[in-house]
């Protein structure tokens, strides 16, 4: 029988020791993703610990404040608000919906609701612990905006399916379809650090990942074959690596590199990243990177991006965040795009996240002048 009191104590202990976490949760002294996620680089299903953390430290206590203690919340943080069991199979479900309105105040303004994902899946643990497991998620994914003309893509797909084996506390091997490790894994799929690097939500690949975690650093190396459901000629094959080093329990610096190619193009890129905790949940995250893409019929072009995101914990469950980004499509050119996005993120109750961001987009060029544009994004995220 799972001991909830122990879990709460463990959460508090890890917090004070600054052992582990999820990108901006370095503000709570969590530095790595592995305690909260089965995938050592985050994303995908949460471990029991991650679920309990989400239910207690991360989410607001305002709803059912009097009737639910943190211990109760931790206890009911399993699938469909159930309680923990030493299950071999741990199901999960995940939904993210996005309301997006572009060019606010302009005649060209457009608004739409996008069901970003609606996944169901399970983590199978034959040994009933987290040392050996199989993760599989399948569900709805919207058609990509840059889909190839004439190519019919199913809106149902496997988001991830892989086998994970922790050889010991430090070393782990993962094989299957999963996200590529690179940069800071923020959930902002429209950020330049994701779009310029082609690492948005459906860019996972069949791969083999080796991960090492020590008190001071995390290191990962991944070899990937692309998404095997794609045609072979467009499937990018390559390798990537990431190293993150803790300067102290509130500062982590890192380096990422990725090289891939298919029949028509090749891409290599690197990034320097930094995450800093400002205590009590607030944090700073910055990433600077360059991406070089080369197509058969053209000269290589190098793009450059800078991503800065700050979270301010206003009260438990409520964050103010500001995202500032800069993107140069071609470093030989002086033209660049700035994006400033103040926003609010609120976890009203466990397993529910809401977020609203206002984006101010500005083009700076010596070739022409253009007015700023404004867009708004509202998100609802539910994980069960």
């Amino acid at each position, binding site marked *: 029988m799972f001991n909830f009191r122990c879990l709460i104590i463990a959460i508090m202990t890890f917090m004070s020791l600054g052992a582990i976490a999820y990108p901006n949760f370095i503000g709570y002294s969590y530095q790595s993703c592995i305690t909260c996620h089965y995938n050592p680089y985050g994303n995908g299903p949460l471990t029991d610990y991650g679920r309990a953390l989400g239910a207690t430290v991360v989410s607001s206590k305002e709803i059912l404040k009097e009737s639910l203690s943190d211990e109760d919340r931790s206890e009911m943080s399993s699938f469909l608000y159930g309680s923990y069991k030493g299950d071999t199979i741990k199901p999960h479900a995940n939904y993210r919906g996005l309301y997006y309105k572009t060019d606010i105040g302009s005649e060209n303004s457009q608004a739409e609701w996008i069901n970003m994902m609606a996944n169901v899946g399970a983590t199978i643990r034959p040994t009933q612990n987290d040392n050996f497991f199989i993760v599989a998620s399948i569900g709805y994914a919207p058609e990509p905006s840059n889909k190839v003309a004439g190519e019919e893509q199913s809106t149902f797909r496997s988001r991830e399916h892989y086998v994970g084996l922790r050889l010991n506390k430090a070393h782990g091997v993962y094989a299957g379809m999963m996200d590529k490790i690179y940069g800071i894994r923020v959930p902002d799929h429209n950020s330049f650090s994701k779009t310029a690097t082609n690492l948005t939500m459906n860019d996972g690949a069949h791969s083999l990942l080796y991960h090492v975690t020590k008190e001071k650093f995390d290191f990962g190396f991944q070899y990937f074959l692309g998404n095997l459901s794609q045609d072979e000629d467009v499937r990018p094959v390559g390798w990537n690596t990431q190293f993150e080093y803790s300067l102290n329990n509130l500062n982590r610096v890192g380096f990422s590199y990725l090289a891939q190619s298919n029949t028509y193009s090749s891409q290599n890129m690197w990034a320097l990243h930094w995450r800093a905790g400002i*205590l009590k949940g607030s944090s700073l995250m910055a990433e600077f990177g360059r991406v070089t893409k080369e197509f058969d019929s053209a000269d290589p072009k190098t793009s450059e991006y800078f991503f800065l995101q700050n979270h301010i914990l206003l009260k438990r469950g409520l964050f103010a965040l500001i995202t500032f980004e800069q993107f140069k499509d071609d470093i030989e050119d002086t033209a660049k795009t700035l994006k400033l996005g103040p926003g609010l993120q609120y976890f009203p109750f466990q397993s529910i996240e809401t977020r609203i961001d206002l984006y101010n987009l500005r*083009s700076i060029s010596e070739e*022409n002048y253009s007015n700023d544009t404004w867009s708004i994004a509202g998100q609802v995220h539910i994980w069960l």
Partner: protein
Amino acid sequence: MVIRIIIAIFVLNSALALSFRDALNAYNKRQYRQSIKILQKLSRGNIKFYTDEALILISKNYEKLGELKNANMIRNFMIQRKYRVEHNEVKKALTGKSDIDDLDELSQGLLKVYYTMLSSRYQIYLKRKTKKNKDIVIRFAELLVEQDYKADKAQMILDIFQKEEQRIKDAIYHKKYFVLASYGSWQDEIILIDNSNGDEREINSTAEGTLLFAGMTYGNAHHEYRFQLGLGFGAATVGEDSANFDYFQTSVGETLFSFTSGYLIKTSDNVAIGVSVPIIFRIGDFTEPENFTIEQGTVITTGLLAHFVWNINKYFLDMEFGKVMKFRSTFINVGIGYQF
């Protein structure tokens, strides 16, 4: 005969127990003088015959009556009667001649007296908040925490002091100076006036550049006022929105002078969030076309900016954005500073 003696002892004990209870009842009813009288009667006026419970109660009565000297005398008597050697060791520790941690486990009876003294001294402190009274209370509380006797209550008193100290410390205003270098971007507009007919044309521009600031913060742990002087150098791309008029320039030099005052609330020790009001003087090196006059080539303006500061030791990240009048769109300023 034996039976009579047993009955007599039983009756006497019952009478004593009842009497002490009476004394306790009187204390609870705030009849402190009455409670003392009962206890005196019990011991036939001789202090040597008082039990420890009776002595503690009598000292409490004196305390309530404000006769602190008598209360202390009673407690000292108790200590001297049974715990002289232990108390001498404790005295050394309390006066700093030895460590509290080094004390052996003390007798429960002595600790009980110390706890009474702690409660009493704390009450005295609440009436007269002197440093001397506070130090005595802290010493007794630390002793009890170390000896693990009613440690939770003693710790509670220590926590109250700690919070009080923190509150005082947090309320103190500090003046700090800083320098800041930042990247800024803004969009503004100039007006071209056709000298021949007086027609006005709005010409928009986007600029970016480097801004240098020096300033001062004045605040405490809860909020701060922020004042800064700034100098900025930017390059603008100036275009035209009208299809029937051609005016386009790149890398137009712009210089900004600013004075900003802001008010920020600290959401934690290292994060501040608030608003700033800048006064901006902007000079632009715009080329004046023949037969046209430029208006707003030089502007003085103000605005309202959201302002965020994240401190990491002596360094800080500073972000400002918002509306500046006469500027077309958001004024953005992101920089890294150093606080002296």
